[in-house]
């Protein structure tokens, strides 16, 4: 007689959700195969990869406030930044301070050399000193640069994430970087749509309306956030009252807008882009200040 152990294990294996006959396995089989070197740290060699350029959105937010470009806008800006020399600058608003961008990173696609520049006022502080101060140490690079998720034209989902390791910034992507660059270039030429992959995590789908009461009255700001960032904003909002120019933050209202995958029409793009964002006016920071070393 077969032992109970074998019987149980066989029974469980027969009911494995990934067993060939199961629905889950069927879905997994339909999913495009992930390249073996996915997740992949094409990055790894530190000299590789990408860059994230943070840019200021003038007039858009205040110290303590925060805004992120939508994926559409980020793609548009990145595509716009793929210049004739093959230098890609990926850009989205990572901070909303009025005193300059947090980080500019560049990658030269020809040589794979990457450069990072920091505004002088930030260079003396380790990591993201001022930011950390504002957020009382709660903020990390990852939360400033969360996962970006796109839907490639072939339906494949692309997850990108920037991380730091030993002072070097690398990009981890679920697709080889060469394909990502090709997609960005295609998007720039209008040949491909890179759409946010909503309802599957990772894309900014939260619109935050922040109501601030101060001596002159009440003002309401509307800004975009990642879904990951919004709860943190809620948690930390009281902590940076002193940094909010002496204003008293009394109320924060979070409106969550859930996105569907939208066709790339001007109207839809306008929906996911901040109203004051114009990729054509995006400033390219040409002032190279040297690679960042911890």
């Amino acid at each position, binding site marked *: 007689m077969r032992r109970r152990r074998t019987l149980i*294990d066989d029974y469980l294996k027969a009911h*494995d*959700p990934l067993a060939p006959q199961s629905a889950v396995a069927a879905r997994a089989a339909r999913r495009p195969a992930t390249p073996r070197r996915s997740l992949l740290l094409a990055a790894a060699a530190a000299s590789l990869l990408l860059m994230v350029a943070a840019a200021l959105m003038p007039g858009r937010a205040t110290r303590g406030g925060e805004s992120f470009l939508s994926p559409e806008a980020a793609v548009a800006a990145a595509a716009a930044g793929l210049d004739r020399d093959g230098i890609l600058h990926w850009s989205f608003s990572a901070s909303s301070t009025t005193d300059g961008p947090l980080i500019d990173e560049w990658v030269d696609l020809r040589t794979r050399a990457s450069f990072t520049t920091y505004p002088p006022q930030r260079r003396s502080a380790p990591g993201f000193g001022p930011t950390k101060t504002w957020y009382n140490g709660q903020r990390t690079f990852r939360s400033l640069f969360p996962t970006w998720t796109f839907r490639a034209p072939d339906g494949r989902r692309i997850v990108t994430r920037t991380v730091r390791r030993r002072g070097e910034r690398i990009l981890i992507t679920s697709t080889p970087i060469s394909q990502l660059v090709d997609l960005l270039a295609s998007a720039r030429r209008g040949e491909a749509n890179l759409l946010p992959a909503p309802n599957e995590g990772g894309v900014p789908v939260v619109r935050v309306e922040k109501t601030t009461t101060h001596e002159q009255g009440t003002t309401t700001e509307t800004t975009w956030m990642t879904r990951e960032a919004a709860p943190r904003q809620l948690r930390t909002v009281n902590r940076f009252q002193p940094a909010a120019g002496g204003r008293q933050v009394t109320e924060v209202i979070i409106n969550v807008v859930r996105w569907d995958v939208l066709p790339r029409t001007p109207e839809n793009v306008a929906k996911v882009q901040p109203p004051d964002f114009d990729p054509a006016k995006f400033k390219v920071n040409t002032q190279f200040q040297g690679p960042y070393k911890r």
Partner: protein
Amino acid sequence: MEPTPHHRFATLVEPHLPELRAFVDRRAPALADDVLSEVGVVAWRRIDELPPGKERAWLFGVTRNVLMAEHRKVAARDSGRADVELADLASPADLALTPAVHGPLAQALARLSARDRELLLLTAWEGLSTAEAAAVLDIRGTAARMGLVRARRRLAAALDELDPGWTGQPATVARPSRSHAANPSTPVDPTEEVSRCAAAER
């Protein structure tokens, strides 16, 4: 010459990615991309700290923790709360029950404790050894062996009730262990069965 981090990642982590994805797919397929990307981040950051010879269990442990963290984030979003306590959430073993397992097996698994259920599924579905499953759950090997014996016994009893034909044999055929079969009135001693299982594994 010391291998580069890139080489270590390619040799120690990448070979396990398919089974890590399967682990997540079985429990929360919608989170698989995010979880795997995060596991890659963690593995890359700690590539120099992987326990020699135990990379697989370590990676499964990381994946399990990341899965719970991702699930917590999703729960926080869906609930509209700023944060969700870990205690509010199901373990990966509970996640395994929700989308993919139906019928008598789901009911039978639900009768087990979360830890026993997780032990059972880690060994049966993920093919981990008892020692690896213990490492994933951060419990002692002896406790894992005891838990597995207990889980199998309870699951068999539950299936006897819920799905009498689960062995593929007539429901009247008993399936006790050997010692139990020799003397059905004697209760099964889990420690004895643990010893036998351990010997069998060796």
